[in-house]
């Protein structure tokens, strides 16, 4: 029983959303690598095919004692959004008190009264970072680094499953060798963005 409780506490459900082509699948690969290294079971669901062509993309990812690949509405511990519109559209996946990590490019949207009320009522922890702005400033506007930036932000926020040293190790292993230096640089920018 004690063991069961211990396992339960490690159970994590993630929703990762964005637009096809933003490199969302890489984020779940990093999550998976970290969980497997810890010896934890994983199950998740990805989008391939037509929807990857610039449309809305959603990845479900569960670590711990789960069977099915899909996260139920209202049960995600974390919603990670590469795109704020997609993030808001999928916010109902988040459980009460969950973390909403979102790349923002239009702050006005978050001033919507209904959204503010929903976030307050559900006690949602909102963590915004200006991904495009950061990449414009430091990476010559190469937005393909957005996925690594969001990993950095997740690590900076100490979201379970994104431990800083483990993400860095996973990046070194999973990303193409020629991009390692830039990836680690962007990862650092992400960590900084989270604490800013």
């Amino acid at each position, binding site marked *: 029983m004690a063991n069961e409780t211990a396992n339960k506490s490690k159970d994590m459900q993630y929703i990762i959303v964005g637009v096809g082509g933003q490199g969302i699948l890489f984020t779940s690969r990093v999550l998976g690598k970290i969980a497997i290294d810890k010896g*934890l079971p*994983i199950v998740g669901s990805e989008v*391939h095919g037509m929807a990857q062509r*610039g449309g809305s993309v959603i990845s479900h990812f569960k670590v711990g004692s789960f069977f099915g690949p899909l996260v139920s509405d209202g049960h995600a511990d974390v919603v990670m959004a590469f795109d704020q519109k997609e993030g808001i559209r999928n916010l109902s996946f988040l459980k009460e008190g969950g973390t909403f990590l979102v790349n923002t490019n239009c702050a006005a949207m978050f001033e919507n009264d209904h*959204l503010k009320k929903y976030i307050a009522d559900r006690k949602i922890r909102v963590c915004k970072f200006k991904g495009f702005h950061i990449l414009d400033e430091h990476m010559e506007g190469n937005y393909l680094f957005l996925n690594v930036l969001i990993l950095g932000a997740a690590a900076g926020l100490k979201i379970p499953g994104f431990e800083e040293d483990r993400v860095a190790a996973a990046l070194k292993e999973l990303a193409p060798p020629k991009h390692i230096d830039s990836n680690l640089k962007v990862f650092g920018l992400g960590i900084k963005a989270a604490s800013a």
Partner: protein
Amino acid sequence: MPVKAMLLGNEAIAGAVVASGCQVATAYPGTPSSEILPAIAAVADRLNAPTVVEWGANEKVALEMAIGASFTGARACAVMKQVGLNVAADAFMTVALYRLKGGLLLISSDDPGPHSSQNEQDSRMFAMFAKVPVLDPSDAVEAALMVKDAFAISEKYSVLTMLRTTTRVAHCRQDIEQVETFEKGNEVKFERDLSRWVSLPAIVRVSHPLHNERIEKIRSEFETEWGKYNYEIPSKTKAKLGVIVSGVCFSTLKDLMKQWCRDDISILRIGTPYPLPHKITESFLARHDKVLVLEEPYPVIETQLMNRSKVDGRWNGVVPSAGELLPELIEKIVLSEIGVEAKKPDASELKSAIEELGLTARKPQLCAGCPHRSSFFIIKKALPNAISPSDIGCYSLAINQKGVDSSLCMGASVTMASGYYLAHKETGQERAVVATLGDSTFFHMGVPGLISAVYNRHAFVLCVLDNSITAMTGGQSNPGLTGKPRKDDLGVALPIESVVRGCGVTFVETVKAYDTASGMDAIKRAWEYAKTNKTPSVLIFKHPCMLLRVPQEKISVTVDNDKCVGCRYCIDNFGCPGLSFDESAKKVSVDKRYCVSCGVCAVVCPQKAIHKVAK
């Protein structure tokens, strides 16, 4: 100790195919099955296994190659998506009755939802129709186990078997032990045996009853030996409800049962939907006052139940007859069966926010710089009143720029162009018809339609949008290219222009997809030629797919704010993600998050507000 890796369901299946000693593996790509064949090649390369891995020009070709291999004793496997099975159906329906030699596995992937398909058909229904035993996994780990067992059943009974997956199994990620070894394949020795290898009526009159007998034997095995796939999870207290469940719905239900902490629902999981283990299902029915059937996407198990008087499912509308059975829906259905209302957090504030902010799901679209966008712009501009039948592939996304008037199934652009022509032929109306299809689709099923159009003197223009890849499914090779799945294996690339000429077409030209001026001229000439000579003319629009990332000249563009009148012409008729429209300012600007500097949009603006930037 084997290493665990995070594998896609399709990769787990591929590992098991190689591990089972499969000697010949074939496929035609189609979501959600596409990753299986390349993964078979990758595992075979890694283990240095003697598995021949090939793309067929279409699913019928792929299945028949595997059937031929099986007749010699080789263990073989063919992979396709559910609608691909329709293309292979001629072979499938008949080979079902054959007494095969080498194990033969057909993997067919369904797409409830649908996410990336033109319908929601159920391959298990097709298996029942053809009388082919089918295994239906609930997750990636089980899919891999079932591959091995499907080969075993196939060889024990000399029968074709099917593994049916769905999108959520094919594209799930799980921690799975990587395959490190593979079984030895069978001896390859073709022996003449007309009682087995031909399908004459006299032979079918013998083989069909024999097949029925072996199906009953397999049914009784599914009732006993294969209990690992068909089993009950009884409730701890008297069950208010029995649920018969298969596929990924079973995994979902297990998660929900944990969440609910209920002990009054019992579950019968069925992993072999055809032939259905009747003794198991009937016993379960007898012991429950009320039974719900959850399966995707069609009622295959439900239809086979002997007595449905206490069964809830699709027949009485308790389970919706279309769409995916997502966790929230399964929760609602199951709980309402036992009189409990599903608890849902109040999301009305969020709903209002989404409405006020005007947030809708982003539609899939052609990539920035996609040569198809340019080709469709050319076609529409040159012949604005043409009827534009298109096909299955990325180019169907040109619907966003009104470049597509109809689509149906693989190859139907060509044949329906014939139909549009024929319908107008005796009416005296003149209507241009311009069909579009991709390189892989042309080889798949475009050729017979083209031959028929030449023979019958049909006037239309066929545009083959050759981006040197099978793009929508993730970038597979096709007969127009030399690439093959296994390392160091090279094919012969067939030039599309020669194939078209070989079909009897007398007007064939290749144009650069980015060259709008030449393209427009070619389209007009092609239609004039077709009309005058009563024959199809063919244009090949060539430019590599953006996903191939072939280096190309960068031509930056900018929008002159003074000239832009906010008419949205570029947005509605070109629709590139690299151009964005500011609703409040009523101006277009270049969105550098997406723009790849192909430069094509510079010709699009009627006000000439989009300029190329001088280097």
